[in-house]
């Protein structure tokens, strides 16, 4: 405690506001995340000779790109201080409508349009209910989660749609012509780039941060909060439509339980990516790297025959550690300060 260096640090800390400290923590978290990612890649190649193989590394992205696509708008939602647990159900609803359209003989462009439109509609209903009635997003999306999934169950019962046009399979199974890059991966990277630009380079993105850090202040600064949240929830619905197209195309069928649990995966990767669950802090880089980190971690564990349920133990633990470590650092800081005060 009598170390002069610590004293200097803590007295400087006092001058820094809480907000910038959390922002700094998020930045350093992105650095830590990058290190963990490198560790996973190194560990993976150490554990199995099949890990660090270009074809494998590219092809395994098929397994987690749909989740990653949904994580992008989920980042917006969490940055706003909201949450959307209905995303898995929107994907199911969107997949259902494509299945019905396909059964009625729709062609591929029509399927895409229907998938996107259904997703958008699902998101818009969420946004409307939340902003019109001023109900917490968690309550509304728990309701619509049940409703959307329920519609899929009511229509399908124990049946499934499995007839899709042959060329539809390309979106979820195909590669960029002339390369070994999966279309899903390329699309995700483009969407991530767009999301990052919107978030960090436009006023729309600044408004999201403003809303998340202080909704009252945002409102008094002239941000139309209700409209912003409506757009963000609709945007999320649209991206769920994209994910539904990729997923339906990849597995070639629509069952009522399609994309169950997607919401928890998407929220996990956003939070692991350093976005504060209370809103206002975080960035695109962390979220993108968290998705690849989780995906490759699971791939590596799969190579050495770790059962899926046990993988969840690792990802769940990682999530908690991701949150606990910055908090521990902050608390040991506080404790030091308190002890010093007590000593005086």
């Amino acid at each position, binding site marked *: 405690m009598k170390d002069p260096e610590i004293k200097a640090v803590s007295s400087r800390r006092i001058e820094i506001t809480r907000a910038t400290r959390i922002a700094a923590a998020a930045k350093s978290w992105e650095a830590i995340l990058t290190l963990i990612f490198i560790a996973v890649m190194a560990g993976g190649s150490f554990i199995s000779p099949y890990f660090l193989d270009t074809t494998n590394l590219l092809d395994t992205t098929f397994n987690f790109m749909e989740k990653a696509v949904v994580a992008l708008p989920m980042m917006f939602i969490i940055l706003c201080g909201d949450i959307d647990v209905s995303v898995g159900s929107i994907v199911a609803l969107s997949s259902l409508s494509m299945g019905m359209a396909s059964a009625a003989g729709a062609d591929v462009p029509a399927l895409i349009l229907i998938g996107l439109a259904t997703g958008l509609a699902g998101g818009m209903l969420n946004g409307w209910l939340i902003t019109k009635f001023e109900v917490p997003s*968690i309550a509304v999306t728990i309701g619509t989660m049940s409703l959307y999934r329920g519609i899929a169950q009511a229509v399908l019962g124990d049946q499934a749609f499995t007839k899709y046009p042959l060329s539809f399979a390309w979106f979820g199974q195909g590669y960029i012509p002339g390369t070994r890059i999966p279309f899903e991966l390329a699309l995700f990277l483009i969407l991530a780039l767009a999301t990052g630009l919107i978030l960090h380079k436009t006023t729309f993105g600044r408004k999201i941060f403003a809303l998340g850090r202080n909704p009252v202040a945002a409102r008094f600064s002239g941000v139309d909060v209700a409209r912003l949240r409506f757009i963000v929830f609709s945007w999320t619905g649209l991206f769920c439509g994209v994910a539904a197209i990729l997923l339906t195309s990849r597995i070639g069928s629509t069952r009522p339980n399609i994309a169950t649990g997607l919401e928890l995966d998407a929220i996990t990767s956003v939070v692991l990516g350093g976005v504060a669950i209370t809103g206002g802090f975080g960035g695109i880089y962390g979220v993108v790297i968290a998705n690849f980190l989780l995906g490759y971690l699971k791939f590596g564990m799969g190579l050495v025959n770790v059962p899926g349920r046990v993988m*969840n133990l690792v990802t769940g633990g990682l999530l908690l550690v991701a949150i*606990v470590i910055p908090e521990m650092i902050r608390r040991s800081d506080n404790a030091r300060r308190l002890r010093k005060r007590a000593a005086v």
Partner: protein
Amino acid sequence: MKRILKSREATLALFIVALTALVSLRAPSFATATNLNDILNDTAVLMLAATAQFLILLTGGIDLSIPSTMALTGMLVSMLNMAVPELPIPLVVLTAMAIGLALGGANGLLVGYLKIPPIIATLGTIAIYRALVFLVSGGEWVSAHEMSELYVSIPKRNLLGVSGILWYTAVVTIAVGLFLSFSGRGRAVFALGGNRTASRLAGIKTERVDFMVFAMSGVISGLAGLLYVTRYAAAQNDTAIGYELQAVAACVIGGVSVVGGSGSMAGVVLGALFLGLLYNALTMVNLSPFYQTAIQGIAILVAIVANTVVDRRNRQKMLARRELA
């Protein structure tokens, strides 16, 4: 405020009676004592899960780990039963509650003392506890023939014509209701959900209350897990999946605010009962059980919107009164 709450429960009770009457018009066997008793028995576990969720919702949090706590407790107690088949029932029940306490206490530590938002802490533990079920069981079930008769009889034991499962549920819900209404700590739970900062300034140790509600939620979930596996005479790896949201649904329908600070135990019990009746009614009127999830979703949304509209009207009335004065 009390009057509003009372009227809300009265409305829900009225809905329940109306639903019962309506369904029994089409299916006369619905409103018979036997069927209603069956529905109560079927709903008991959901009532317990909803009570566990209710405590957390009151503080403004959410507990997603309830089904995993139920599954892990159910599996561990069932494995204990395989090892010691004739363990007296009180000991089995206490063990289940102790396991629940440990799991809920871990959540409480994360939320109360490490200040992790409840949704994140329990998002982590829902995965971890579920993975632990798989690890301790090795992926195997404990099925009916591996359970002792004494063990399977826990929810069925009759006392004064009421089954054991209902006794446990009644004791828990009444105890929690009394605790919340009449003890200082119970009032602190409401205070925390109403205004966290004000509660802290008023001298409430918020960490301790957070820890306490998660510990209680764990104990109740542990008991619910025991009753779940003994009622269905099987401890599986995916026991109770999805119960976290059904429990929230029961609370929301019962008028509990998801941002914390308001709600009543009676409302939660009625909310769970409403869902239970709904599920049973679907089969009674020959509607496919596949409609269950969709109707549940509509019920939740209607309840939320109705709550908000009523709240808003009350607030406006209060404002109008203030302007008059």
